Protein backbone atom coordinates (compact mmCIF):
# COMPACT_ATOMS: atom_id res chain seq x y z
CA UNK A 1 0.00 0.00 0.00
CA UNK A 2 0.98 3.62 -0.50
CA UNK A 3 2.12 5.19 2.78
CA UNK A 4 -0.70 7.08 4.46
CA UNK A 5 0.80 10.22 5.95
CA UNK A 6 -1.46 12.55 7.90
CA UNK A 7 -2.73 15.58 5.99
CA UNK A 8 -1.86 19.11 7.09
CA UNK A 9 -4.65 20.73 9.05
CA UNK A 10 -7.49 21.89 6.84
CA UNK A 11 -10.81 23.12 8.19
CA UNK A 12 -13.97 23.82 6.29
CA UNK A 13 -16.44 26.36 7.52
CA UNK A 14 -19.65 27.50 5.86
CA UNK A 15 -21.68 30.45 7.14
CA UNK A 16 -25.07 31.61 5.92
CA UNK A 17 -24.74 29.90 2.56
CA UNK A 18 -27.49 30.92 0.18
CA UNK A 19 -27.74 29.63 -3.34
CA UNK A 20 -30.25 30.19 -6.10
CA UNK A 21 -30.61 27.96 -9.11
CA UNK A 22 -32.58 29.75 -11.74
CA UNK A 23 -35.39 31.52 -9.91
CA UNK A 24 -35.57 29.06 -7.04
CA UNK A 25 -33.69 29.56 -3.77
CA UNK A 26 -32.37 26.09 -3.04
CA UNK A 27 -30.22 26.80 0.00
CA UNK A 28 -30.91 29.55 2.51
CA UNK A 29 -28.69 30.14 5.50
CA UNK A 30 -26.79 26.85 5.73
CA UNK A 31 -24.01 26.70 8.33
CA UNK A 32 -21.38 24.03 8.79
CA UNK A 33 -18.23 23.66 10.84
CA UNK A 34 -16.05 20.78 9.72
CA UNK A 35 -12.57 20.84 11.25
CA UNK A 36 -9.80 18.54 10.04
CA UNK A 37 -10.72 14.94 10.68
CA UNK A 38 -14.50 15.09 10.38
CA UNK A 39 -17.02 13.19 8.35
CA UNK A 40 -20.02 15.28 7.35
CA UNK A 41 -23.15 13.44 6.30
CA UNK A 42 -25.45 15.73 4.32
CA UNK A 43 -29.00 14.43 4.56
CA UNK A 44 -32.35 15.53 3.31
CA UNK A 45 -35.20 14.54 1.02
CA UNK A 46 -34.96 14.80 -2.78
CA UNK A 47 -34.68 18.40 -3.86
CA UNK A 48 -33.41 19.61 -0.49
CA UNK A 49 -30.23 20.91 -2.14
CA UNK A 50 -27.68 18.26 -1.17
CA UNK A 51 -25.97 18.31 -4.54
CA UNK A 52 -26.22 22.11 -4.75
CA UNK A 53 -24.52 22.35 -1.35
CA UNK A 54 -21.66 20.15 -2.56
CA UNK A 55 -21.33 22.16 -5.77
CA UNK A 56 -21.13 25.41 -3.80
CA UNK A 57 -18.37 24.04 -1.58
CA UNK A 58 -16.64 22.69 -4.69
CA UNK A 59 -16.64 26.19 -6.17
CA UNK A 60 -18.81 25.32 -9.12
CA UNK A 61 -21.78 27.56 -8.34
CA UNK A 62 -22.12 31.21 -7.39
CA UNK A 63 -23.55 31.75 -3.89
CA UNK A 64 -23.84 34.32 -1.16
CA UNK A 65 -22.55 33.75 2.34
CA UNK A 66 -19.08 32.55 3.29
CA UNK A 67 -17.22 29.38 2.55
CA UNK A 68 -13.71 28.99 3.87
CA UNK A 69 -11.38 26.13 3.23
CA UNK A 70 -8.13 26.10 5.20
CA UNK A 71 -6.85 29.65 5.30
CA UNK A 72 -8.74 30.75 2.21
CA UNK A 73 -12.15 32.32 2.63
CA UNK A 74 -14.65 33.59 0.11
CA UNK A 75 -17.87 35.45 0.27
CA UNK A 76 -20.31 36.27 -2.47
CA UNK A 77 -20.16 34.78 -5.92
CA UNK A 78 -18.00 31.99 -7.10
CA UNK A 79 -14.95 31.04 -5.12
CA UNK A 80 -11.95 29.72 -6.99
CA UNK A 81 -11.62 26.01 -7.50
CA UNK A 82 -9.66 24.52 -4.62
CA UNK A 83 -7.13 21.97 -5.78
CA UNK A 84 -7.07 20.24 -2.44
CA UNK A 85 -10.38 18.56 -3.03
CA UNK A 86 -11.81 15.86 -5.19
CA UNK A 87 -15.50 15.88 -6.07
CA UNK A 88 -17.16 12.65 -7.12
CA UNK A 89 -20.59 13.57 -8.44
CA UNK A 90 -23.48 11.19 -9.03
CA UNK A 91 -21.92 10.67 -12.49
CA UNK A 92 -18.94 8.38 -12.78
CA UNK A 93 -16.67 10.24 -15.25
CA UNK A 94 -15.74 6.86 -16.75
CA UNK A 95 -15.51 6.40 -20.52
CA UNK A 96 -17.36 3.22 -21.52
CA UNK A 97 -15.12 2.52 -24.53
CA UNK A 98 -11.87 2.63 -22.54
CA UNK A 99 -10.72 -0.14 -20.23
CA UNK A 100 -10.84 0.21 -16.48
CA UNK A 101 -7.08 0.62 -16.35
CA UNK A 102 -7.04 3.26 -19.11
CA UNK A 103 -9.75 5.22 -17.36
CA UNK A 104 -7.94 5.26 -14.06
CA UNK A 105 -4.53 5.97 -15.53
CA UNK A 106 -6.06 8.95 -17.32
CA UNK A 107 -7.34 10.37 -14.04
CA UNK A 108 -4.02 9.56 -12.38
CA UNK A 109 -2.17 11.50 -15.11
CA UNK A 110 -4.49 14.44 -14.67
CA UNK A 111 -3.85 14.44 -10.95
CA UNK A 112 -0.12 14.53 -11.50
CA UNK A 113 1.05 11.05 -12.41
CA UNK A 114 0.49 8.68 -9.51
CA UNK A 115 0.38 5.61 -11.75
CA UNK A 116 1.82 3.34 -9.07
CA UNK A 117 -1.37 3.88 -7.10
CA UNK A 118 -3.64 2.40 -9.76
CA UNK A 119 -3.07 -1.25 -8.91
CA UNK A 120 -3.72 -0.93 -5.17
CA UNK A 121 -6.71 1.31 -5.92
CA UNK A 122 -8.25 -1.27 -8.26
CA UNK A 123 -7.61 -4.02 -5.74
CA UNK A 124 -9.21 -2.00 -2.97
CA UNK A 125 -12.21 -1.33 -5.19
CA UNK A 126 -12.54 -5.04 -5.94
CA UNK A 127 -12.32 -4.55 -9.71
CA UNK A 128 -8.69 -5.59 -10.32
CA UNK A 129 -9.86 -8.69 -12.23
CA UNK A 130 -11.60 -6.37 -14.69
CA UNK A 131 -8.50 -4.24 -15.35
CA UNK A 132 -8.56 -4.73 -19.12
CA UNK A 133 -12.31 -4.89 -19.61
CA UNK A 134 -14.00 -1.92 -21.35
CA UNK A 135 -15.70 0.04 -18.60
CA UNK A 136 -18.97 0.01 -20.53
CA UNK A 137 -19.14 -3.77 -20.20
CA UNK A 138 -19.22 -3.62 -16.42
CA UNK A 139 -22.28 -3.44 -14.20
CA UNK A 140 -23.42 -0.12 -12.74
CA UNK A 141 -22.04 -1.05 -9.34
CA UNK A 142 -18.66 -2.00 -10.77
CA UNK A 143 -18.54 1.29 -12.68
CA UNK A 144 -19.29 3.11 -9.46
CA UNK A 145 -16.47 1.26 -7.71
CA UNK A 146 -14.14 2.16 -10.55
CA UNK A 147 -15.13 5.82 -10.25
CA UNK A 148 -14.67 5.82 -6.48
CA UNK A 149 -11.22 4.31 -6.94
CA UNK A 150 -10.26 7.80 -8.19
CA UNK A 151 -10.34 8.88 -4.53
CA UNK A 152 -7.35 6.65 -3.86
CA UNK A 153 -5.40 7.98 -6.85
CA UNK A 154 -5.79 11.64 -6.09
CA UNK A 155 -4.65 11.72 -2.45
CA UNK A 156 -6.49 14.95 -1.70
CA UNK A 157 -7.42 15.93 1.87
CA UNK A 158 -11.00 16.97 1.06
CA UNK A 159 -13.50 14.57 -0.45
CA UNK A 160 -16.88 15.70 -1.69
CA UNK A 161 -19.09 12.73 -2.48
CA UNK A 162 -22.53 12.87 -4.04
CA UNK A 163 -24.43 9.65 -3.31
CA UNK A 164 -21.23 7.56 -3.19
CA UNK A 165 -23.03 4.35 -2.36
CA UNK A 166 -25.58 4.48 -5.16
CA UNK A 167 -25.55 1.21 -7.14
CA UNK A 168 -23.18 -0.39 -4.62
CA UNK A 169 -23.86 -3.69 -2.86
CA UNK A 170 -23.46 -4.40 0.84
CA UNK A 171 -19.72 -5.03 0.56
CA UNK A 172 -19.39 -1.79 -1.42
CA UNK A 173 -21.08 0.12 1.40
CA UNK A 174 -18.63 -1.37 3.85
CA UNK A 175 -15.70 -0.51 1.58
CA UNK A 176 -16.81 3.14 1.32
CA UNK A 177 -17.36 3.39 5.07
CA UNK A 178 -13.83 2.05 5.58
CA UNK A 179 -12.36 4.49 3.03
CA UNK A 180 -14.09 7.42 4.70
CA UNK A 181 -12.89 6.30 8.13
CA UNK A 182 -9.31 6.04 6.94
CA UNK A 183 -9.47 9.45 5.26
CA UNK A 184 -10.90 11.10 8.37
CA UNK A 185 -8.24 9.45 10.57
CA UNK A 186 -5.56 11.00 8.37
CA UNK A 187 -7.02 14.40 9.14
CA UNK A 188 -9.02 14.79 5.95
CA UNK A 189 -12.55 16.10 5.64
CA UNK A 190 -15.22 14.04 3.90
CA UNK A 191 -18.54 15.62 2.98
CA UNK A 192 -20.99 13.09 1.59
CA UNK A 193 -24.58 13.56 0.47
CA UNK A 194 -26.45 10.34 1.07
CA UNK A 195 -29.88 8.78 1.27
CA UNK A 196 -28.68 5.50 2.62
CA UNK A 197 -26.79 6.24 5.84
CA UNK A 198 -23.06 5.49 5.71
CA UNK A 199 -21.77 4.01 8.94
CA UNK A 200 -18.12 4.85 9.50
CA UNK A 201 -16.17 3.30 12.35
CA UNK A 202 -17.37 4.27 15.81
CA UNK A 203 -14.49 6.55 16.80
CA UNK A 204 -14.86 8.83 13.76
CA UNK A 205 -15.97 12.40 14.37
CA UNK A 206 -19.22 12.79 12.48
CA UNK A 207 -21.42 15.81 11.84
CA UNK A 208 -24.84 15.54 10.29
CA UNK A 209 -26.12 18.40 8.17
CA UNK A 210 -29.86 18.11 7.68
CA UNK A 211 -31.29 20.07 4.77
CA UNK A 212 -35.00 20.67 4.45
CA UNK A 213 -37.02 20.46 1.31
CA UNK A 214 -38.05 23.94 0.18
Amino acid at each position, binding site marked *: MVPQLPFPKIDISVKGLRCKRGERTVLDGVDLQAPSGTFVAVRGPNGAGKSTFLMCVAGLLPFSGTVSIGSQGWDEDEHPINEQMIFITHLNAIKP*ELTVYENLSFWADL*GGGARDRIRPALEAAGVSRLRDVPAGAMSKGQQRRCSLARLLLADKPIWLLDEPTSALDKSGDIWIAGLISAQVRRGGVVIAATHRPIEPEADIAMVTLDLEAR
Partner: protein
Amino acid sequence: MQALWALLIRDLKSASRAGGSLTTLIAFYLSLGVILPIAIGPDKPLLASLGPALIWTGVLLSSLLGLDRIFVADHDDGSLTAFRHTRLGLSAISFVKLIVHWLTTALPLIVLTPVMGVLFSIDLDTLFAVMLTLLLGTPAITALSLVAAALSVSLKRGAVIAPILVMPLAIPAVIFGVGAAKPVLGAGQAETALLFLSAMSLVFVAFAPFAAALALRVSQE
Protein backbone atom coordinates in the same frame (compact mmCIF):
# COMPACT_ATOMS: atom_id res chain seq x y z
CA MET B 1 1.83 19.26 -20.19
CA GLN B 2 1.65 15.60 -19.25
CA ALA B 3 -1.98 16.06 -18.29
CA LEU B 4 -2.80 17.69 -21.64
CA TRP B 5 -1.09 14.87 -23.46
CA ALA B 6 -3.06 12.33 -21.41
CA LEU B 7 -6.30 14.07 -22.39
CA LEU B 8 -5.34 14.10 -26.07
CA ILE B 9 -4.49 10.39 -26.07
CA ARG B 10 -7.62 9.48 -24.13
CA ASP B 11 -9.89 11.41 -26.50
CA LEU B 12 -8.27 9.96 -29.62
CA LYS B 13 -8.49 6.43 -28.20
CA SER B 14 -12.07 6.95 -27.20
CA ALA B 15 -12.93 8.36 -30.66
CA SER B 16 -11.26 5.48 -32.47
CA ARG B 17 -13.00 2.83 -30.36
CA ALA B 18 -16.43 4.38 -30.22
CA GLY B 19 -16.51 3.76 -33.98
CA GLY B 20 -19.24 4.71 -36.38
CA SER B 21 -18.66 8.44 -36.35
CA LEU B 22 -15.75 8.41 -38.80
CA THR B 23 -17.63 6.08 -41.13
CA THR B 24 -20.67 8.36 -41.00
CA LEU B 25 -18.50 11.38 -41.71
CA ILE B 26 -16.85 9.75 -44.74
CA ALA B 27 -20.13 8.39 -46.07
CA PHE B 28 -21.81 11.80 -45.75
CA TYR B 29 -18.98 13.66 -47.47
CA LEU B 30 -18.74 11.19 -50.33
CA SER B 31 -22.52 11.10 -50.79
CA LEU B 32 -22.40 14.85 -51.34
CA GLY B 33 -19.73 14.16 -53.95
CA VAL B 34 -22.09 11.77 -55.70
CA ILE B 35 -25.31 13.74 -55.36
CA LEU B 36 -24.07 17.20 -56.39
CA PRO B 37 -22.75 16.17 -59.86
CA ILE B 38 -26.01 14.33 -60.50
CA ALA B 39 -28.00 17.41 -59.47
CA ILE B 40 -25.90 19.72 -61.64
CA GLY B 41 -26.17 17.47 -64.68
CA PRO B 42 -23.80 16.36 -67.44
CA ASP B 43 -21.98 19.66 -67.90
CA LYS B 44 -18.34 18.91 -67.17
CA PRO B 45 -16.86 22.45 -67.46
CA LEU B 46 -19.61 23.86 -65.25
CA LEU B 47 -19.03 21.13 -62.67
CA ALA B 48 -15.28 21.69 -62.71
CA SER B 49 -15.67 25.43 -62.28
CA LEU B 50 -18.08 24.93 -59.37
CA GLY B 51 -15.82 22.21 -57.90
CA PRO B 52 -13.87 24.24 -55.31
CA ALA B 53 -17.04 25.91 -54.01
CA LEU B 54 -18.86 22.58 -53.78
CA ILE B 55 -15.95 20.90 -51.99
CA TRP B 56 -15.74 23.73 -49.47
CA THR B 57 -19.48 23.55 -48.83
CA GLY B 58 -19.22 19.79 -48.51
CA VAL B 59 -16.43 20.05 -45.95
CA LEU B 60 -18.32 22.68 -43.97
CA LEU B 61 -21.54 20.65 -43.87
CA SER B 62 -19.77 17.37 -43.10
CA SER B 63 -17.73 18.90 -40.31
CA LEU B 64 -20.95 20.08 -38.64
CA LEU B 65 -22.14 16.49 -38.45
CA GLY B 66 -20.17 15.44 -35.40
CA LEU B 67 -20.08 18.87 -33.86
CA ASP B 68 -22.09 18.06 -30.73
CA ARG B 69 -19.69 15.28 -29.84
CA ILE B 70 -16.94 17.72 -28.84
CA PHE B 71 -18.16 18.27 -25.29
CA VAL B 72 -21.39 16.32 -24.87
CA ALA B 73 -19.88 12.97 -23.87
CA ASP B 74 -17.68 14.57 -21.21
CA HIS B 75 -20.59 16.66 -19.99
CA ASP B 76 -22.98 13.72 -19.76
CA ASP B 77 -20.63 11.34 -17.97
CA GLY B 78 -19.46 13.92 -15.44
CA SER B 79 -15.90 14.24 -16.74
CA LEU B 80 -16.30 17.99 -17.30
CA THR B 81 -17.10 18.53 -13.63
CA ALA B 82 -14.26 16.26 -12.60
CA PHE B 83 -11.84 18.26 -14.78
CA ARG B 84 -12.55 21.33 -12.67
CA HIS B 85 -10.60 19.98 -9.71
CA THR B 86 -7.54 19.02 -11.72
CA ARG B 87 -4.66 21.27 -12.67
CA LEU B 88 -5.99 21.69 -16.19
CA GLY B 89 -7.94 24.85 -16.84
CA LEU B 90 -11.08 24.66 -18.93
CA SER B 91 -9.39 26.68 -21.69
CA ALA B 92 -6.50 24.20 -21.90
CA ILE B 93 -9.03 21.38 -22.05
CA SER B 94 -10.94 23.22 -24.79
CA PHE B 95 -7.71 23.65 -26.75
CA VAL B 96 -7.08 19.88 -26.63
CA LYS B 97 -10.69 19.29 -27.71
CA LEU B 98 -10.10 21.62 -30.67
CA ILE B 99 -7.07 19.60 -31.77
CA VAL B 100 -8.93 16.31 -31.34
CA HIS B 101 -11.94 17.55 -33.29
CA TRP B 102 -9.72 18.80 -36.12
CA LEU B 103 -7.83 15.49 -36.25
CA THR B 104 -10.97 13.37 -36.24
CA THR B 105 -13.13 15.53 -38.52
CA ALA B 106 -11.28 18.02 -40.71
CA LEU B 107 -8.23 15.91 -41.41
CA PRO B 108 -10.13 12.86 -42.77
CA LEU B 109 -12.16 15.20 -44.99
CA ILE B 110 -9.01 16.81 -46.40
CA VAL B 111 -7.48 13.39 -47.01
CA LEU B 112 -10.61 12.34 -48.92
CA THR B 113 -10.69 15.48 -51.04
CA PRO B 114 -8.82 13.92 -54.02
CA VAL B 115 -11.77 11.54 -54.39
CA MET B 116 -14.07 14.55 -54.51
CA GLY B 117 -11.72 16.07 -57.08
CA VAL B 118 -12.33 13.09 -59.36
CA LEU B 119 -16.10 13.22 -58.80
CA PHE B 120 -16.17 16.93 -59.72
CA SER B 121 -13.58 16.41 -62.48
CA ILE B 122 -11.37 19.31 -61.38
CA ASP B 123 -7.78 19.45 -62.58
CA LEU B 124 -4.78 18.61 -60.44
CA ASP B 125 -3.60 22.18 -59.84
CA THR B 126 -7.02 23.27 -58.61
CA LEU B 127 -7.23 20.16 -56.45
CA PHE B 128 -3.96 21.03 -54.73
CA ALA B 129 -5.10 24.62 -54.28
CA VAL B 130 -8.38 23.43 -52.70
CA MET B 131 -6.55 21.08 -50.37
CA LEU B 132 -4.17 23.84 -49.33
CA THR B 133 -7.04 26.22 -48.58
CA LEU B 134 -8.83 23.50 -46.64
CA LEU B 135 -5.70 22.82 -44.62
CA LEU B 136 -5.39 26.51 -43.77
CA GLY B 137 -9.10 27.24 -43.40
CA THR B 138 -10.53 24.26 -41.50
CA PRO B 139 -8.90 25.31 -38.19
CA ALA B 140 -11.13 28.40 -38.25
CA ILE B 141 -14.22 26.26 -38.79
CA THR B 142 -13.14 23.85 -36.05
CA ALA B 143 -12.60 26.78 -33.68
CA LEU B 144 -16.11 28.10 -34.37
CA SER B 145 -17.50 24.61 -33.87
CA LEU B 146 -15.74 24.40 -30.52
CA VAL B 147 -17.42 27.55 -29.24
CA ALA B 148 -20.83 26.52 -30.59
CA ALA B 149 -20.48 23.08 -29.01
CA ALA B 150 -19.54 24.63 -25.67
CA LEU B 151 -22.49 27.03 -25.81
CA SER B 152 -24.98 24.27 -26.54
CA VAL B 153 -23.51 21.56 -24.33
CA SER B 154 -26.23 21.57 -21.70
CA LEU B 155 -29.11 22.02 -24.13
CA LYS B 156 -31.14 18.96 -24.99
CA ARG B 157 -31.27 19.86 -28.67
CA GLY B 158 -27.70 21.10 -28.77
CA ALA B 159 -26.90 18.89 -31.73
CA VAL B 160 -29.50 20.78 -33.74
CA ILE B 161 -28.68 24.30 -32.60
CA ALA B 162 -24.88 24.24 -32.74
CA PRO B 163 -24.58 23.86 -36.55
CA ILE B 164 -26.95 26.78 -37.03
CA LEU B 165 -24.69 28.90 -34.81
CA VAL B 166 -21.61 27.96 -36.80
CA MET B 167 -22.85 28.39 -40.36
CA PRO B 168 -23.27 32.18 -40.55
CA LEU B 169 -19.96 32.69 -38.75
CA ALA B 170 -18.18 30.38 -41.18
CA ILE B 171 -19.12 32.56 -44.18
CA PRO B 172 -15.85 34.58 -44.19
CA ALA B 173 -13.78 31.40 -44.10
CA VAL B 174 -15.75 30.02 -47.05
CA ILE B 175 -15.38 33.27 -49.03
CA PHE B 176 -11.63 33.42 -48.59
CA GLY B 177 -11.20 29.67 -48.90
CA VAL B 178 -12.99 29.45 -52.24
CA GLY B 179 -11.47 32.75 -53.35
CA ALA B 180 -7.98 31.43 -52.80
CA ALA B 181 -8.68 28.10 -54.46
CA LYS B 182 -10.34 29.58 -57.53
CA PRO B 183 -9.21 33.16 -58.14
CA VAL B 184 -11.53 35.12 -60.42
CA LEU B 185 -10.13 38.60 -59.91
CA GLY B 186 -6.75 38.02 -61.50
CA ALA B 187 -3.25 37.68 -60.12
CA GLY B 188 -2.67 38.38 -56.47
CA GLN B 189 -6.16 37.44 -55.36
CA ALA B 190 -5.23 33.89 -54.45
CA GLU B 191 -2.29 35.00 -52.37
CA THR B 192 -4.22 37.71 -50.52
CA ALA B 193 -7.13 35.37 -49.85
CA LEU B 194 -4.76 32.72 -48.57
CA LEU B 195 -3.19 35.19 -46.16
CA PHE B 196 -6.61 36.31 -44.92
CA LEU B 197 -7.66 32.70 -44.48
CA SER B 198 -4.55 31.88 -42.46
CA ALA B 199 -4.95 34.97 -40.33
CA MET B 200 -8.56 34.05 -39.64
CA SER B 201 -7.61 30.55 -38.58
CA LEU B 202 -4.86 31.80 -36.29
CA VAL B 203 -7.09 34.37 -34.60
CA PHE B 204 -10.04 31.99 -34.19
CA VAL B 205 -7.88 29.19 -32.84
CA ALA B 206 -6.23 31.59 -30.40
CA PHE B 207 -9.50 32.93 -28.99
CA ALA B 208 -11.87 29.97 -29.26
CA PRO B 209 -10.55 27.97 -26.27
CA PHE B 210 -11.12 30.93 -23.94
CA ALA B 211 -14.60 31.60 -25.30
CA ALA B 212 -15.45 27.90 -25.02
CA ALA B 213 -14.15 27.76 -21.43
CA LEU B 214 -16.36 30.69 -20.48
CA ALA B 215 -19.38 29.03 -22.09
CA LEU B 216 -18.67 25.75 -20.28
CA ARG B 217 -18.32 27.49 -16.93
CA VAL B 218 -21.69 29.17 -17.37
CA SER B 219 -23.36 25.98 -18.55
CA GLN B 220 -22.43 24.15 -15.37
CA GLU B 221 -24.35 26.52 -13.17
